[in-house]
């Protein structure tokens, strides 16, 4: 399995990627996750301003194969969602680490970052050589 796992991002076992940017983090699902889901047809995103706990369900992604829950990679407040996904959910398949980002979050507890995975750890998690 040849999946893209950019260095410099953090990952979760629930197949989210996290990128730090100006005191916030940008989050989306990994290339591995989008590949497994197949064509994404709908994304239900959290509301801006919503306070979330790490590991809490914050939305769903529907593909031609399944409905899969989305889980917050860190605790904090949702500051922005990618509204382009409402019209073009396929951006998640086309560009999971770019235009397919799902939401931005202001972390409330930076110590939780230690619980995220490096690209190498995530690669081991998904069994990708």
């Amino acid at each position: 399995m040849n999946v893209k796992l950019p260095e410099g991002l953090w990952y979760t076992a629930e197949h989210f990627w996290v990128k730090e940017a100006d005191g916030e983090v940008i989050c989306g699902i990994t290339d591995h996750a989008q590949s497994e889901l197949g064509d994404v047809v709908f994304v239900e995103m959290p509301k801006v301003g919503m306070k979330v706990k790490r590991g809490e369900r914050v939305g769903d992604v529907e593909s031609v194969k399944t409905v899969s829950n989305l889980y917050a990679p860190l605790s904090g407040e949702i500051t922005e969602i990618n509204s382009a996904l409402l019209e073009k959910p396929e951006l998640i398949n086309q560009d999971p680490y770019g235009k397919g980002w799902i939401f931005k979050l202001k972390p409330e507890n930076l110590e939780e970052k230690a619980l995220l995975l490096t690209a190498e750890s995530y690669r081991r998690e998904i069994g990708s050589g």
Partner: protein
Amino acid sequence: MQVIFDPPLSGYENMARDEVLWEGRGNEEELVLRFFSWEKKTLSIGRFQRTQDIDRSFLHAQGISLVRRPTGGRAILHEDDLTLSLAMPRGGVSLDTQYRQLKEVFGQALFRIGIPVDEEIDHFPVRLHSPACFALSFPHELTVKGKKIAGIAQARNKERTLFQVSLPFSIDRVLVASCFHHQELVYTDLRENFSALEEIGFHHSLRARLMEVLLESLEDLWRVKREEREWKSGELLRVRTLLEEKYALDSYHWER
């Protein structure tokens, strides 16, 4: 493998019961197979399916209920079908693997009753334009001679997977198509893409036989033993809560 045989229930109750099995609270490792049926004709729609394509007044006039499933996919009219759900741990296997495992079970079961299911097709054409499940083709379909014979929908949370399956014995294509505003398109797609079991030689009267071969195939291929059980009181309490929170609310099913 725990097996539950439910009597005919409302669509709301059926979906609430499936969601409880999917949650598997305190029993995350449990594999549960539930056979269920419907106390009246019911159109079940996908978790995020929009209702704008559905002819609400036609449903009302025909006494057809509408219910939103916890799983994805498109609409199925449950009238003369075998419906079942399978709630199980994700078990660290991929989505594709779980679909393949399930398809293998159905393939073997249907073979035992003389229905040869098509081999897996690598590049199945995906058709997304229709609001009706049986008018569509997704990967991992159960097909006979290229025509779909079952609807399989799935949902996943952190720990568990829920499959909901419908195998129609017969289909009234005009009735199904009439549930939607673009009925001619749906009718044409149903005619071209779908076969009911009776149309390929398997009669409704053999329903119990079909259930038995499914159980046997699950036991053979997944190396599990069946154990029939009743609902636990805690599960039924949770069903009541889900009914009050969403499934018994008309607005929940029509909101999108």
